[in-house]
């Protein structure tokens, strides 16, 4: 579980606040996205979760541990961060070496380490590539390897920074099914993203950040269809929501679908009802 208790942060006493009075609770096993304009404070928030930064005011708790009193090593066991660009994360000779390096720092028996590596290779469909150089893999395979290096440590919270950037539709679909599969293992999946269309399709909950403050938090469809939040955060609402708004201008009884899967049904209802 992640808890932010009235958290504020600034890099030094004479600089502006990057995060201001944010409180938040994310339960274990949630699949959640955080959105906001460039510079809204998303990266700072993520760094507060894995202990790279400590709050200036307030407290951050990860599975009950106060990050202000915990080491980065302790927190890294709970929170895994996957970088936006796999090239910034990968360095070893083979995919297996990448995973091996990642577990080496944990106080695990050799057997436990080997089992974790084997399982990760299977769960992320990497077994075939285990002896290949990560740099000779395709973009999607590289991405899976970079997730694997974190996954192998068995963190309870997995944070992915902009995982869909530069991915084509097929890679995005594969990533989406991988993330839903990982979530079934009870992990918390936390995306930092600009990808509104991906978020609306896959993440049940969303947080909107603007100038260091959480201005929206709740079920994705509900937050994205809140005109005030979206315009305040300068976010461009997803197409399906904009279409429903447009139709509602003359047909106020038309209801917003609860999820994107119900979108077609809503349009059919619109055409059907007088």
């Amino acid at each position, binding site marked *: 579980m992640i808890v932010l208790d009235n958290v504020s942060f600034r890099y030094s006493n004479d600089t502006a606040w990057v995060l201001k009075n944010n409180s938040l609770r994310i339960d274990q096993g949630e699949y959640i996205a955080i959105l*906001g304009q460039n510079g809204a404070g998303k990266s700072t928030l993520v760094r507060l979760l894995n202990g790279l930064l400590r709050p200036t005011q307030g407290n951050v708790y990860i599975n009950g541990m106060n990050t202000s009193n915990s080491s980065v090593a302790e927190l890294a066991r709970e929170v895994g961060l996957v970088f936006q660009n796999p090239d910034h994360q990968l360095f070893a000779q083979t995919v297996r070496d990448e995973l091996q390096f990642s577990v080496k720092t944990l106080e695990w028996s050799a057997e436990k380490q080997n089992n974790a590596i084997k399982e990760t290779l299977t769960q992320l469909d990497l077994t075939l590539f285990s002896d290949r150089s990560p740099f000779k893999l395709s973009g999607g395979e590289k991405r899976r390897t970079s997730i694997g290096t974190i996954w192998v440590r068995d963190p309870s919270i997995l944070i992915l920074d*902009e995982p869909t*950037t530069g*991915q*084509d*539709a097929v890679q995005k679909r594969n990533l989406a099914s991988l993330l839903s599969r990982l979530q079934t293992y009870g992990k918390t999946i936390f995306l930092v993203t600009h990808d509104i*269309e991906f978020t609306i399709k896959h993440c049940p909950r969303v947080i909107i950040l603007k100038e260091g403050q959480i201005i929206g938090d709740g079920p994705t469809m509900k937050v994205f269809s809140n005109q005030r939040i979206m315009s305040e955060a300068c976010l461009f609402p997803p197409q399906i929501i904009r279409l429903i708004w447009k*139709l509602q201008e003359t047909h106020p009884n038309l209801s917003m679908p609860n999820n994107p899967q119900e979108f077609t049904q809503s349009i059919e209802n619109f055409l059907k009802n007088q």
Partner: protein
Amino acid sequence: MSIIQFRDVSFSYHTGECDFPALKNVNLEISPGSFVLICGATGCGKSSLFRALNGLVPHFYEGQFTGQVLVNGKDTRQFSTRDLSLEVGLVFQNPDNQLIAMNVERELAFGPENLGLSREKIIAQVEYALDVVNIQHLRKKSPLELSGGEQQRVAIASVLALNPPILALDEPTANLDPQRALDILAFLSQLKHQGKTILIVEHRLELVLPLVDKMVVMQNGRIAVEGSVEFVLRSQDPAIDALELPPIVELFKYMEKTYPRFSDIPFTVEKASEILFAKKNEGFKV
């Protein structure tokens, strides 16, 4: 008359062990002043196509090149990349890979300086680029202290400082939030209206389609489908599966399949709502 012509162009990179075919028998004509979207799965040949535009393929990248690319009438094999840089400006996805100077003004002067232009001419070109992209206020700043959107504008300006008639942009908005991405796309559309030819790779179709005159879908080094947006969206070609179609397009493709009287494929909210209102007024029954 086309400003860009690819005539049966094939190119394979020499990668050491084996040749990697990146472009296969590509034929393409682009009219001047058009806004062209190039899309397709990762590795389909989009970047190689761009490199062939300004002569990086075959002058810089080793490989086997056949066919002919004409840019503003210039055969890319006969002209140096220096000459071709006056015809085509390339903008990459990540401005960090492109920006090198101490401040924005120096950054914009870098291209014209390398062409050996006179001091007066360099100053005029830099002023032109600052004005067109509307970044006069950033001129003394270091590119490193700018936001992602500002950096991308500087990258575009640095290319415009050479005032080429063609701009080719490889995912220029990938690192930007949707609002800033839209700002850049709207700005590119303005440049088109000033007569520039724009080629762009962009995955976020819902943002870019309303601006596009021609859409080209590539697959495995070939052009799979090309034409107007509506023509391409209707295509049954499997290459379309690699695109993330906007939800409205998905909706109307479903409607077309399910209900015989649905035959339009709109891609903007305005057009979609117009069609739905018309259908409802006609007394359409589902």
